[in-house]
């Protein structure tokens, strides 16, 4: 296949995951506006961070007047998973020029990583993987920003009785369950679920950080003692 075909193939390969992302984007836009951010502020935040879960939590913490340090720290913990994707995609992205490495890093998302790794064996060379990956990344970038913009403009029109905000925890769950590869992952997920509810009243909205840190600590113990439960 020629380069542009592979790029288009990458773009199209994202279509099955885009419908799951759109409600999430719409909610991001709606929540931004209803939390008192202007349209340029919501879109600016969206463009700069380009990480849905961390943005949503950042806006939520801002409405509770949480300190900036904690907002930054919480967001970074949520986005730490990108290290894994960065390591996985560096195998082919390291062959790019500096500018394309920068763009490739920016376009790294759960979805673009998942789709590229699913098609990895189908692509024959690292050059093909690069073109495919940029197709995926661009698709995600376009539809994510469009859906957030639509949420900003029309979010208030959708009747609240449709409970579209319920799509947010549902989409987080739909990102989690496929990542649970064995019983130990289920254990960690359930531990985090329970602790996040128990720690809801910790001061300074520290509950999320404490829960996530304990989850990573338990994971470390699982690996350390190689307990394959």
């Amino acid at each position, binding site marked *: 296949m020629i380069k542009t075909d592979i790029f288009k193939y990458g773009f199209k390969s994202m279509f*099955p*995951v885009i419908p799951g992302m759109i409600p999430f984007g719409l909610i991001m836009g709606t929540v931004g506006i209803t939390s008192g951010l202007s349209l340029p502020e919501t879109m600016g935040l969206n463009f700069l961070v380009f990480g849905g879960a961390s943005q949503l939590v950042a806006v939520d913490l801002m409405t509770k007047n949480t300190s900036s340090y904690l907002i*930054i720290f919480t967001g970074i913990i949520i986005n730490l998973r990108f290290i894994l994707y960065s390591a996985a995609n560096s195998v082919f992205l390291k062959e790019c020029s500096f500018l394309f490495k920068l763009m490739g890093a920016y376009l790294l998302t759960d979805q673009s990583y998942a789709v590229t790794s699913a098609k990895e064996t189908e692509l024959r060379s690292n050059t093909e993987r690069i073109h495919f990956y940029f197709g995926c990344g661009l698709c995600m970038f376009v539809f994510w920003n469009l859906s957030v913009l639509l949420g900003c403009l029309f979010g208030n029109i959708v009747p609240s009785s449709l409970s579209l905000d319920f799509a947010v925890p549902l989409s987080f*769950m739909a990102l*989690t369950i496929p990542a649970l590869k064995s019983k130990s992952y289920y254990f960690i*997920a359930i531990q985090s679920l329970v602790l996040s509810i128990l720690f809801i009243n910790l001061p300074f909205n520290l509950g999320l950080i404490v829960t996530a840190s304990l989850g990573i600590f338990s994971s470390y113990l699982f690996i350390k003692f190689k307990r394959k439960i």
Partner: protein
Amino acid sequence: MNSYYLWSSIIPLSIGTFLIRSSFIFLSDKFKLNDEIKLLFSYIPASVLPALLGPMVYFHKGEIDFFNYHERLIAFLFGCIICFYTKNIFLTIIAGLLGLYFLRLQFL
């Protein structure tokens, strides 16, 4: 919202996020992730994402007193089952929302 507060939170967060994304793309020749660290990173979604959604679902006050106003918990569990068998984000969201509408129709 105070614009200094907004940007002094968002700009460092976006720089931090970008550095995380860049990490191995730029440094993979100099550093290698050992298998234990890779394995540890693979637990991050399981540690973080449930902690985000737990309070959203559990502390939401619904409308149906039959479920003690926790009807979203039931609809959420239904979504979990659909997700477990389909592994499809879109179907999961649709199933959860339809589950919620169904509970309202039946019990409200």
